[in-house]
């Protein structure tokens, strides 16, 4: 059955919670399957280290992704190199797949502007903190691709809370009207900080919101990496090579759970029960994929151990590199404000330098 013709409340699944195959396994090489697993393990390990960096005062507020690895990595893995990713602020895992290094992600959350600059050959938009504000950008970027006759598809990430914002409505509506090559990937992790999914909308599913925009909507088990890959792949292909009868854009609702806090500034024990967290932990995407791959003979103890070692080393190296970066020069405050710095900004920058000269940096720093 075409994934776009399912009932909205019937999520696509490939693996059950034990890793047993219950759906159509996507056509992926053994090496791709191992890559998916490796990325997910790396993202999980990175997440734990990042939270502890914040706890130790070595990094600012950080939004954890633990529990959401399948949704991020399965979807990003389905994009082609020329496609674009438009993230919110939690997509460190998807970003890693697309070529945003862990070091760069760390730099952003360590307060360095360079952390928001993707390398030239990496098709990723900057982090978007204001909720849903990136959705119209994704539509515009896809529209540009269509107007220029290019092949690039634009995949936009946002959460369940974002579907309540005006920008979500406007961006998805434009995509429907102009039939843009978009995938709108909703990470429904059940909680917008303390506000449950049920408080965002009376709709039974988020996927069904697609109906009103005249685009396709599909729900997927967001903790099943193979299902996420398969659904995203189908949506990307349909966006790239228009089906004669179907709309190009798709809204994917990936049903999942954030195991941890909204950010390190949040305490989820105030608003949700441990029982609920435990129920969702049983759906953990990593053991699920691992069980499947072990059953297929793709992974064994030795391979798993070496992947873990590699992930630990990669994350440790990224932390070392990020922490060894010097504090940016204060002049960088002014850089990139405009193509050419107006005279007044030059004056302000010079005045700051003169003050530093006269008083030293210690006079400015609050540490």
């Amino acid at each position, binding site marked *: 059955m075409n994934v776009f013709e399912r009932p909205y409340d019937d999520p696509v699944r490939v693996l059950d919670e034990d890793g047993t195959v219950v759906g159509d396994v996507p056509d992926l090489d053994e090496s791709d399957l191992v890559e998916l697993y490796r990325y997910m393990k790396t993202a999980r390990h990175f997440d734990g280290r990042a939270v502890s960096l914040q706890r130790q005062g070595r990094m600012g507020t950080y939004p954890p992704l633990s529990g959401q690895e399948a949704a991020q990595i399965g979807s990003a893995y389905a994009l082609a190199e020329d496609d674009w990713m438009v993230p919110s602020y939690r997509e460190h895992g998807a970003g890693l797949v697309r070529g945003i290094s862990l070091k760069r992600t760390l730099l952003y959350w360590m*307060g360095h502007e360079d952390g928001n600059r993707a390398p030239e050959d990496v098709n990723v938009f900057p982090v978007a*903190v*204001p909720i849903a504000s990136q959705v119209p950008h994704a539509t515009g970027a896809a529209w540009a691709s269509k107007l220029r006759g290019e092949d690039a598809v634009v995949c936009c990430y946002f959460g369940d809370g974002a579907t309540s914002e005006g920008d979500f409505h406007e961006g998805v509506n434009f995509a429907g009207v102009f039939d843009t090559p978009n995938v709108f990937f909703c990470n429904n992790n059940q909680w*917008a900080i303390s*506000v449950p999914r049920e408080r965002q909308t009376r709709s039974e599913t988020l996927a069904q919101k697609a109906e009103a925009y005249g685009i396709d909507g599909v729900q997927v088990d967001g903790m099943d990496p193979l299902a996420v890959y398969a659904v995203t792949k189908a949506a990307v292909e349909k966006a790239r090579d228009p089906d004669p009868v179907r709309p190009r854009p798709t809204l994917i609702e990936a049903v999942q759970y954030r195991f941890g806090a909204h950010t390190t500034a949040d305490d989820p024990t105030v608003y949700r029960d441990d029982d609920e967290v435990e129920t969702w932990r049983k759906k953990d995407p990593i053991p699920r994929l691992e069980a499947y791959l072990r059953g297929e003979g793709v992974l064994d103890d030795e391979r798993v151990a070496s992947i873990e070692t590699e992930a630990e080393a990669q994350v440790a190296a990224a932390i070392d590199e990020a922490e060894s970066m010097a504090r940016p020069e204060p002049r960088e405050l002014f850089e990139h404000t405009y193509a050419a710095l107006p005279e007044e*900004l030059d004056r302000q920058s010079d005045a700051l330098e003169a*003050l530093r000269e006269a008083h030293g940096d210690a*006079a400015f720093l609050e*540490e």
Partner: protein
Amino acid sequence: MSDTQNLTLVQAVRDALYTEMQLDEEVVVLGQDVGKNGGVFRATEGLFDEFGDDRVVDTPLAESGIVGCAVGMAAMGMRPVPEIQFSGFMYPGFDQIVSHMARFRTRTRGRFTLPMTLRAPYGGGIRAPEHHSESKEAFYVHEAGLKVVMPSTPYDTKGLLISAIRDPDPVIFLEPKLIYRAFRGEVPEEDYTVPIGEAVTRREGEDVTVFTYGAMARPTLEAAESLTEEGIDAEVVDLRTVSPLDREAIVDAFKKTGRAVVVHEAPKTGGLAGEITAIIQEEALLYQEAPVTRVTGFDVPYPLYALEDYYLPSVTRIEEGIREAVEF
């Protein structure tokens, strides 16, 4: 004399809300995470348990919806107190603020009024993520029909917030989150008001008058104290309300010294310092001994936190500004 409590600024916010919700059933709080979570800064802690889901309302994640629904409630005579979680997230609600919240009274020739108070934490210095540190009060000051309040002490916070809630007109209440928990102050347990539109002198001085508000009041006072060692005696005026400005207090305090410095963390261009300078020019030109010095944020987007200490007016920068005005 009523009993007092020793509260932080954010506890004073909570106390004002609690006090008014007890006195007036028409007061409702709505916003993101204000309910069970008690607010991300705990400004509404315990209110959900005390007053229930009908009066302390977690809304969908939609700022235009929050502000717009508050406009509708207020038009019907209720006194909604919407919270926007950070002032940097007010912009999806900006259309509601400037097109409706500010203008309902004018547009309907007084038929509808909006006794609502829009609260939001503002300002930098807490190592926050992007869009969590801005100080953009000038946007709202520029909009006639709104009052804009920016307190700097727990006592003023409770008294001004109660005034705002009782005010017949819409008030934007910007809370300095840098000092939410920085210190405590005596706050009466009873209900009391601090009038909107009145500045207060925090320090008497003879040589120069420094105007400031919100989170910058503390480093400004620190700079004023430290300059006594150099023989500079600075007067510090805390505006408390930035719209309407207390014109009389500004002019009187300026005339006393003939020299002025304005300190705010908002960017320089188009900021409140320009307006205060103009008031001085209009009302007290002949008293003026020196150009007005502006010590402000720079005209750049608020930086990620690695450089925010250079962006914000530090005690050193404020001292330099004061010296400049005195030595001219």
